């Protein structure tokens, strides 16, 4: 029987309880939506007593479905003011499932000063331990210390100094399978600050002596379908650029089409993008002993991750991804991949969302605080976050805060959250997703690139955004969206898996319904939190400034946006 791990930071207790039956067929984003609706008042202070930090894995927890062990971290976001589900890869979800834990709920605020961590040992015993020794320790050093103490067969869920300082763009870093680097980020929405507000430094999970096995309604059917689906995904992944190169491959598509953000979303082209593109990346990996085709969780057949070394061949960073490269790179006019890799490392280390802070740095460049393209100066700003300077504090609270402080008129946010590496004028469906997703400017909620007709046109973009938002909402409850993208031709098998695990009929509406329900629940929650249609808007400058690359403006009107999530 699955457990919920209840971590009460007011009482300073941690205990296991039976996982509620009402959530039995839920996981990931869907579970977070329903649990929030049931237990967390929408009007609560995100950094206050009533908010909860939810950590869970997918509906297929404990099974052999490839990438079933994504971790979803949710709560009310201090950045958006609405519901947030921030997910990541890494090893933690696999070990939580192995420990029989379907969900961890962190609630309350401590009455006393202190810092704590939760430790789950190999026997499954849970304890809340004093972590004041690690106060101010950033994630890489923290993980090293945990390896010294508990060995390498562990996973960590931790915050760095940014989370401890309650920066609204603080991430929660998850250690990856293998070396255990804390490089998988549950980055969006500032969940690291929620964890920091509760004075919880980390959850450290040891590999269990005996792995928990879920109950199957029909084990044989499940296993047969699972084997088939894993094969389908593996076959698709063979031709997937994410496997063969890494997510950096996306820049080869966006760099030519005006989708790649350049110079704070100026809409220009940046021919030097090839300096931070796939070929440069592969050359640097090959010549320095780096690696791609790495997994971040056991059993992954997509293998999109990487280890990136510096010029001397020493480890620099891992999980080096498109968003980070696009936004620290061309969007800041930086064309040095090594500089960007150093920035990635700093962000993972102090626990900060690279998308948010890169947008903040671009704004700082636009407003003349540092020059465009100056990588060392950009690193200097990140150092200010680490050092806790006055400007560092601003940066730690997101690009909108920085933009307002510097008087910038061009702040690329929706629901106060910074946009990802796709210019909404040149992929309008993605712009529609940015505007209408309950998660804020979140590309993973429904990236429509190449999925409708011309990306700079309106035709079918709203349709694509709606369909993808539903698909991503259920995919994020089940597996990694990169694996999902490769199983779309065999989607009915997901219904067979649900039936094999939970019983009942294999009905695809059970799967798609999960997506619709999650979206509607999130929308309702946000409405109760005080959000209105006014929050479903793309910043004005995208509507008035034509992208020089394509001539396109974001011309999807409010009336069209208002019906995107009608069902």
């Amino acid at each position, binding site marked *: 029987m699955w457990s919920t791990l209840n971590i009460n930071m007011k009482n300073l207790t941690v205990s296991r309880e039976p996982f509620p039956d009402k959530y039995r067929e839920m996981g990931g984003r869907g579970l977070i939506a329903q649990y929030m609706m049931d237990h967390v008042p929408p009007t609560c202070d995100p950094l206050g007593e009533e908010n909860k930090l939810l950590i869970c894995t997918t509906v297929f927890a404990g099974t052999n479905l490839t990438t079933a062990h994504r971790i979803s971290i949710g709560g009310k976001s201090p950045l958006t003011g609405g519901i947030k589900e921030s997910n990541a890869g890494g090893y933690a979800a696999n070990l939580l499932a192995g420990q029989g834990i379907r969900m961890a709920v962190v609630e309350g605020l401590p009455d006393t000063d202190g810092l704590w961590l939760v430790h789950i040992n190999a026997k499954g015993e849970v304890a809340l331990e004093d972590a004041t020794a690690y106060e101010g320790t950033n994630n890489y050093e923290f993980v090293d210390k945990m390896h010294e103490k508990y060995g390498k067969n562990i996973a960590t869920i931790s915050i760095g100094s940014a989370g401890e300082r309650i920066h609204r763009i603080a991430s929660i870093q998850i250690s990856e399978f293998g070396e255990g680097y804390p490089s998988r980020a549950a980055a969006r929405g500032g969940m690291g600050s929620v964890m920091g507000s509760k004075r919880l430094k980390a959850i450290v999970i040891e590999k269990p002596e005996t792995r928990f096995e879920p109950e199957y309604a029909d084990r044989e059917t499940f296993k047969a379908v699972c084997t088939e689906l894993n094969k389908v995904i593996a076959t698709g992944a063979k031709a997937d650029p994410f496997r063969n190169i890494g997510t950096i491959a996306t820049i080869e598509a966006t760099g030519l089409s005006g989708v790649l953000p350049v110079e704070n979303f100026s809409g220009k082209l940046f021919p030097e993008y090839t300096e931070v593109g796939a070929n440069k990346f592969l050359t640097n990996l090959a010549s320095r002993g780096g690696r791609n085709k790495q997994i971040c969780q056991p059993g992954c057949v997509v293998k999109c991750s990487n280890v990136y070394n510096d010029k001397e061949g020493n480890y620099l960073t891992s999980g080096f991804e498109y968003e980070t490269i696009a936004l620290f790179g061309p969007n800041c006019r930086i064309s040095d991949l090594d500089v960007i890799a150093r920035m990635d490392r700093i962000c993972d280390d102090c626990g900060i969302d690279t998308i948010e802070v890169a947008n903040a740095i671009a704004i700082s460049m636009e407003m003349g605080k540092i020059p465009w393209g100056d990588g060392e100066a950009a690193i200097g700003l990140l150092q200010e976050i680490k050092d806790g300077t006055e400007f560092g504090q601003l940066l730690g609270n997101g690009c909108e805060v920085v933009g307002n402080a510097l008087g910038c008129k061009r702040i690329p946010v929706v629901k106060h959250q910074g946009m990802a590496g*796709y210019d909404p004028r040149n992929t309008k469906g993605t712009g529609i997703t940015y505007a209408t997703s309950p998660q804020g400017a979140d590309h993973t909620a429904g990236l429509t690139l190449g999925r409708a007709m011309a990306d700079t046109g309106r035709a079918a973009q709203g349709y694509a955004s709606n369909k993808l938002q539903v698909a991503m909402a259920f995919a994020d409850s089940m597996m990694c969206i990169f694996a999902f993208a490769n199983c779309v031709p065999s989607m009915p098998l997901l219904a067979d898996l649900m039936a094999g695990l939970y019983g009942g009929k294999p009905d695809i509406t059970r799967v798609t319904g999960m997506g619709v329900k999650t979206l509607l629940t999130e929308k309702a929650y946000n409405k109760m939190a005080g959000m209105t249609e006014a929050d479903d808007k793309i910043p004005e400058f995208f509507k008035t400034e034509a992208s020089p690359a394509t001539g396109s403006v974001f011309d999807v009107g409010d009336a069209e946006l208002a019906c995107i999530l009608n069902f």
Partner: protein
Amino acid sequence: MIIIDGKSYPYQPDTTVLEAVSQLGIQSDNMVLVVIDGRVMPWNQLDQELIQDGVEIRLLHIVSGG
């Protein structure tokens, strides 16, 4: 011989990369990366590059994003 996605095809001199992939019905598409001997080549350069005998071309389809 040239190899495209694991299949062999006869080598024809004076053929551009674009011609070689077009014969398979592959259209110019930002969502498809053309990788030649391990290097990505943008679509706007494919008609400028002649294929060499023994070249290996892979077509990688972007299906997701993140």
